[in-house]
Structure formats: structure tokens, C-alpha cells
């Protein structure tokens, strides 16, 4: 069986599955239950000044019959006094010494405040620190969380303060509520961070109540933007992870967060450069037991490919993630419809006819009289739309059309033109 243990910037963990700092990691009871269920680590819900919360505070986005496709919250950091959290963290670490326990921290923009809290949590033996520069609501209005995470200079400065006293690895958790996450990631790296984690939640308004004309959720007649997460945010998170993973100026390990619900999502994040993942919404939806399939599925995935260690797949797809200017303009695919699996719903036809390149014809079969769908390959631009809307797996295949032209990217083309040459498209 493959070795699932990971090493993230010196932090050891029995497996790559951590619970993210969030409601599931609010207490020793919860984190210990999670470790018993198989989670390799947990980032304890952010420590800081005791907080007063509001009700209600969560909302779910249901889509097409599936519940909790997206999720958001307006909950703040821990609402328990620091001493209580430290005591429970200490108990948890004693009971589960081999599991990874990370303290998430958020304090005001003061050097002494950071020094003080770092010393306190390290005294109880945590395996690492995660600086919360990501929370988009409540704390940000007080100059913390994503208010810091949107300013590279503030990030760098606070990381430096932490590194002055920290004995354990420091992870910086970044906000996606920013134009280009590489700038804040680089700032964290420059400040001396050992790793970054991403993404925290995205500013969102989950919905509006059609009867009450109020935001969802609302608190006594008013709502506020909340932090968006769950399966719906995965592509945004995965892009940010990949962008940082391929940026040499970032150059530090990444803990992947954002809509990870199963072992397949995990493999995707690992391939795109994450060393381990953090999960929240899926655990909130189904309980801690989902980690069983995550571990089992990941183990089977690695075993079936003869891969000995999960660390061997970290970052293996990063080099395939590039910029548009480097894509081969001479590569071509076209849609091919497999009649034996096609169920004739004609969704591909109308999608192509109305919104793409009008190249899927409905043709009556001369023998049977039954209608068939046929792609005019010479007109197909290979956009994928038909295969995306097709409800049957494998009924529409995108087939590569061999090209007799050499690969040519936009950048190469522009360079060739600038040099006065010609180029064949």
C-alpha cells in the first residue's frame, strides 16, 4: 500500500487530509473525533480575541437537486477564550501525538501581539502555525484577515514579525479576494513564510429571499457578504494553487484549500502543486467519516499506478499549466459523435446551432429513417461545447486531427513576424 504521509515545509503528517480552520475544528472534542475518523491533521479554528457571533450565519447553495453545491458563512474566528483553546489543543496533541495540529492565528497589526500569541501556542507543542490573512467578513472590517491579505506589504511585515519568534513552520493563508494572488504569495515568501495555504473564502451573497426580500442569510432584517466555499469554488482555488506553484518567485510549498470533496479533487490539487489539502465544506456536509473514502480512494489510485508515495505526485502536472501565448495554435480537435452510445437528445445540435459554429446536422438515415447526428468536421472548431452539454459519458469524443504543420504558439508567431519571417497557421 502506498505511503500517504506527507512533509509540508517540515511539517509531518500521516496523510494529506487536514481539516481546515473552520467550524469543524472549533474544539478538542471535534478535532479528536476527526483524528479518530482518520484525518491526518487539523488547523484549529483561528485563535484571537474572543468573538461575539450572530445568528444565523451559514447559507447553502443547492443546484439541480444537489444540496450544498456552494456554501457561505458569516461566522467569525473562535468564540472561546484563548486559555480554553490552548488547554484543549494541548489535550488533543497529547492524545494524538502523531497527528498534525496547526494553530491558525489572527491578531491585530502589532508586533508584540503576534509575538505573544506565537509563543503561547508553540508552548503547547503545535506542529506549525497558519496566519489567517484570508477571512473576508467581520474581522476584515477591523483591519485583520483579508484586509491584511489584500496588501502584500502588510503580509510581508507580519510574517517577518512572526518569524522573529516562531520555532515551527509558518504557513500563510491567503485570500482569493484579490486581483492576482501571486503578489500576496510572493510577499509571504519574501517575509520568510515556510508555506502558503489557499484559498480562503470568496466574497459572496448567497441569495435573496423571494418572499421576504432579504439577503440569505440575514440577521434581523439585514445581511452582509459572507465567505463562499464548497465544490463550486474548486476551479478558482485550483487555478490559484497552480499559478503560485508555477511561479518561481513564490517558491514555497502550498497547502491546497477550496471545494475539495473527495480523493479525486485531492489528486488534482496535488498534481497542480499542493502538498496536502485542507477540507471543510465536505466535512460539514457529510461528517468526518468522508475521509474514509478519501484515504481509500487515494491509496487505490496510487497502488493501481504503482506509485509508492503520495509525495511522488506532488506538482507533477504543474509544468503543463502555462499561459495562453504558449499554446500550440496548430493543434486541432473535432467532435465525433458515437452513434452507438448517443441517446438522441439533440442537446449538442442546439448548443452548436444557437451558440457555437453550426456544424452538427440532424440527418435522416437513408435505410432506417431514424435521425442521426453528424458533425461536419471541416466546420468544427473543436470548442468542446457539444461534449460538455452531452449527458452521456463518452457519446461525444473530441478527436485529434493530425496536423502536417509544426507546433506554433502565439508567442512564437509574434516573434517570427517581428524577425521579419513568415509563419504558417
Amino acid at each position, binding site marked *: 500500500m502506498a505511503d500517504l504521509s506527507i512533509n509540508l515545509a517540515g511539517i509531518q503528517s500521516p496523510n494529506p487530509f487536514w481539516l481546515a480552520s473552520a467550524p469543524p475544528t472549533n474544539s478538542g472534542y471535534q478535532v479528536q473525533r476527526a483524528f479518530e475518523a482518520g484525518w491526518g491533521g487539523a488547523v484549529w479554528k483561528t485563535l484571537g480575541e474572543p468573538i461575539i457571533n450572530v445568528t444565523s450565519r451559514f447559507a447553502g447553495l443547492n443546484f439541480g437537486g444537489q444540496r450544498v453545491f456552494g456554501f457561505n458563512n458569516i461566522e467569525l474566528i473562535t468564540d472561546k477564550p484563548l486559555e480554553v483553546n490552548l488547554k484543549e489543543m494541548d489535550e488533543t496533541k497529547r492524545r494524538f501525538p502523531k497527528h498534525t495540529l496547526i494553530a491558525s492565528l489572527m491578531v491585530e497589526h502589532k508586533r508584540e501581539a503576534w509575538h505573544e500569541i506565537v509563543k503561547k501556542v508553540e508552548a503547547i507543542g503545535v506542529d506549525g502555525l497558519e496566519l489567517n490573512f484570508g477571512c473576508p467578513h467581520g474581522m476584515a472590517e477591523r483591519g485583520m484577515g483579508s484586509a491584511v491579505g489584500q496588501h502584500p506589504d502588510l503580509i510581508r511585515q507580519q510574517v517577518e514579525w512572526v518569524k522573529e519568534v516562531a520555532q515551527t513552520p509558518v504557513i500563510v493563508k491567503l485570500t482569493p479576494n484579490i486581483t492576482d494572488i501571486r503578489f500576496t504569495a510572493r510577499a509571504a515568501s519574501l517575509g520568510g513564510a515556510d508555506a502558503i495555504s489557499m484559498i480562503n473564502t470568496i466574497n459572496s451573497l448567497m441569495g435573496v429571499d423571494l418572499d421576504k426580500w432579504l439577503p440569505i442569510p440575514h440577521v434581523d432584517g439585514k445581511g452582509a457578504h459572507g465567505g463562499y466555499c464548497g465544490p463550486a469554488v474548486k476551479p478558482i482555488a485550483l487555478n490559484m494553487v497552480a499559478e503560485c506553484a508555477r511561479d518561481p518567485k513564490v517558491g514555497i510549498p502550498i497547502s491546497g484549500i477550496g471545494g475539495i470533496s473527495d480523493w*479525486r479533487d485531492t489528486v488534482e490539487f496535488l498534481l497542480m502543486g499542493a502538498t496536502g489539502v485542507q477540507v471543510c465544506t465536505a466535512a460539514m456536509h457529510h461528517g468526518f467519516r468522508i475521509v474514509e473514502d478519501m484515504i481509500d480512494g487515494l491509496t487505490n489510485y496510487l497502488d493501481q499506478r504503482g506509485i509508492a508515495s503520495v509525495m511522488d505526485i506532488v506538482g507533477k502536472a504543474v509544468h503543463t499549466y502555462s499561459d495562453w501565448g504558449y499554446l500550440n495554435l496548430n493543434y486541432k480537435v473535432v467532435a465525433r459523435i458515437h452513434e452507438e452510445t448517443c441517446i438522441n437528445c439533440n442537446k449538442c445540435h442546439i448548443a452548436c446551432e444557437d451558440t457555437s459554429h453550426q456544424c452538427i446536422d440532424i440527418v435522416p438515415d437513408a435505410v432506417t429513417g431514424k435521425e442521426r447526428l453528424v458533425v461536419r468536421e471541416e466546420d468544427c472548431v473543436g470548442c468542446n461545447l457539444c461534449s460538455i452539454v452531452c449527458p452521456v459519458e463518452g457519446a461525444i469524443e473530441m478527436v485529434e486531427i493530425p496536423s502536417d504543420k509544426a507546433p506554433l504558439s502565439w508567442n512564437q508567431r509574434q516573434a517570427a513576424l517581428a524577425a521579419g519571417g513568415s509563419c504558417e497557421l
Partner: protein
Amino acid sequence: MSIPNELAKNFSEVVPALKPMEAIHEANRCLYCYDAPCIKACPTSIDIPSFIKKIATGNLFGSARTIMESNPVGASCARVCPTEELCEGACVLNSASKPIMIGLLQRHATDWAIQNQATLFSKGEANGKRVAIVGAGPAGLSAARELARLGYAVTVFEAKEKAGGLNTYGIVSFRLPQEISLWEVEQVEALGVEIRTHTRIGEDVSPDELLDQYDSILLAVGMGNVPQLNIPGEELEGVLDAIALVEETKTKPLSDEMLGKKVVIIGAGNTAIDAATCSKRLGADNVQILYRRTVQEMSCYQFEYEFAKQDGVEFRWLVAPTRVLEENGRVKGLELVRMELGEPDEKGRKRPVAIPGSHFVIEVDYVVKAIGQNRHLSLLEAFGLQHRNGIVEVEEGTYRTSHVKVYAAGDVIFGGGKTDAMVVDAANHGKRAAHAIHQSLNDQIQPV
């Protein structure tokens, strides 16, 4: 196409497998309940939400393992379990939508394992102890699988040519093809379990030899043939044993002897249904199930009853056979007497009573007996086990018989009014008996 080949089509699996997309949709419909009632309704306690979740995440290997871990004959059970009475009957979606098709999803995952030749389990490190299992049916195989994983050297003794018991020989091919059962047998053999077929305890090997040579013995012998009707003419050609009839369709080229014939089945349990639907598929023109009680008292499952009716099987209630009529040494007809229900018996079932002078004769070509099964009394006696009418008495929870080295599981301990025992129950017994044996033998090797 020859007639037997034509008939062979009738014996291919009736219920189609889920299509890949159907399986994914169905798996995603499962709510993944916590502490789910379907798990509690399964005698082998398969973690059903977990195996379904694994189908949804594309972890089919893990899904099949989850199923087979709990139930070593889980591929067969996916086809033969009365799911609407067990897991699917307990599904919480019964009250909100439609229950999840748990049986078919289980079949989807185990079929994947079969088609991909997945090795799901490995044998345990040898612990030096030897266990003999008598009978390679669901109970015996389950016990063998568990014991092999725990490091025991296991030998299974099986009287028939192949292992699998009821699953291999006794369930009609159109519900359970033999290759499914034989795959489960291979899974057990792959763990180093030796299965000695064609070996009958009491004839080829004596009970004493087993007692001498093994640390523990598990008796999982199942049941024998259908008992006698005890009516005149029973010896005639054309009077068949339902179990033997089903077995023939699974082991020999199909015969066209029943083509166009009139067949009656005596009894209305699940075996009777199997015999009736088999007869229909062998080409019988008219198939009737004769039962001395009414539809309320018959012991077959509701879905079996519906299935038989859809196959065109006719049911006649409140009649009992009194004499088989003969012509040239063959069955020609059957004399029946009409019955009525009288006072309840000790089990509370109304006793059928013959109505005097109500005899009548029907024309038949075959009479198939399906009125229960004989028990292997002589074997129980040879081991000196305490039993009630062939039902071995075992200690609650440990499956230990009156003999300290002998345990019993499956059909040999079923009784108490149940006329039909389920494969899944036998598997559960076998699994638990294995753990009881392990507990006992492990205690012996513990330092005092």
C-alpha cells in the same frame, strides 16, 4: 438454432445490470445517511452508504472491497437478497422519494471487481492453527474467508463437484449465474484455503479424523433433498425433486423434455417458485403451483410471487396431492383433494384440513416436489451433536455446538419456523462463527 440453445436464452440473467450512467446517477442520489438504517437492515452489516459513496467517487475497487469485507458472498447476495425486505426496505428515501437501488449498486461494484480481476484481500500470517469446514456453501465460504485472513490453515470439505453450495447449484441461473458464485469461491481459494470437493464426511473422511487433525471444526452442511410426499405413485418417472431440477439446469445441457408439457409444483416456498419458473423456461406449456394453504400463508417472497405470475405460472390454493396416476410407468395425472383452513397450529398458522369427498384428478406430465428439505441427520449424529429435528443447537453468539471443538453455521442451525433461510444470513453466521472460533483458539494460545 437447436431447441436447447433456444432454451438457453431463457436462462440468461433476467434483471439487467445498471448501465454505467445509471449507476452514477443512482449513487449520487444516496443521501449518505449517518448511522443508516440500511446498514442495520443488512444481516452482514455492509457499510452501504460508504460503498455507494465510493461508486460516486469512482473508487470501485474500494466499493467492492467494502461490500466483500462485510459479506464474502456479496456478489451473489447482490442478486438474491430480498432487498425490499432488507436494505432497500429500510432506505429513508422510501418516505420521500424512491429507495436507492442498493442491490443493483452492489452488483455494479462487485461486477466491476469480477471483470477487472481485482484481488480484494490477502491471507493473514500463518498462526499454526488448523480449521476444518464441512460444506462449501455461503456459510462455509464466509467462515473460510475470515479464518484465512486471520492466519488459519483452512480446509473445506465439499461433497459436490464444485464449491458454492446453494449459490452454485440451487439458485436458478436467470437470477444467479454460476460464474458469480464460482468467482466468490476463487476469492476464498486465493487466500490459500484448500477446498476438497467430491469429499463426503462420514464416507470419504470420518468425523473422528477431523476431530483428531483440526483445532476446530465448523459444520456448514446446509440441507439435502426434498422429503417424500408419502403418497402412492411417488416413485414414478416424472416425479422430480425441485432442488435436483434446478441443479440440472445449472450443471447439464438443457433438456427439451418439458417442451409443451403440463407441470405441477407441490409447495409454495422460494424453491417452488424457482422450480416453476425453471419449468416454464424449459418450455412447459402449463405450470401450476399447488399449495394446501392460501396466498396469505405461502412462504415465498412477494417479488418471487410476482415474478412467477409474470412468467405465466398459475397458482392453485387449498389443494393437496393424494395420489400420482400412472401410464406405462410414467406420471399421467395427479389426484388432489380440496382443503380448508382449520384451527391454528402451534406456530399460529391455520392448519389445512382435507374436505372429505372432494377428490378430483388433473392431467399432468411432471410432478415437482418442493415441500422443504431434509436435514443431514446422520452427520450430526456422527459428531454426537445435540439437535432438535436436525437443527443443531448452538450457544448464543458463539455458534458453538454441544461438542467443544465443533461449531455450526448456516442451514444446519436455521429453524424456528423459518421455512427459507437467506444466503445473507448464512454468510453472516459463517463470518461470526469464524470470529468465535478465532476468539476461542486465540484464547488458548494466550499466555496465562
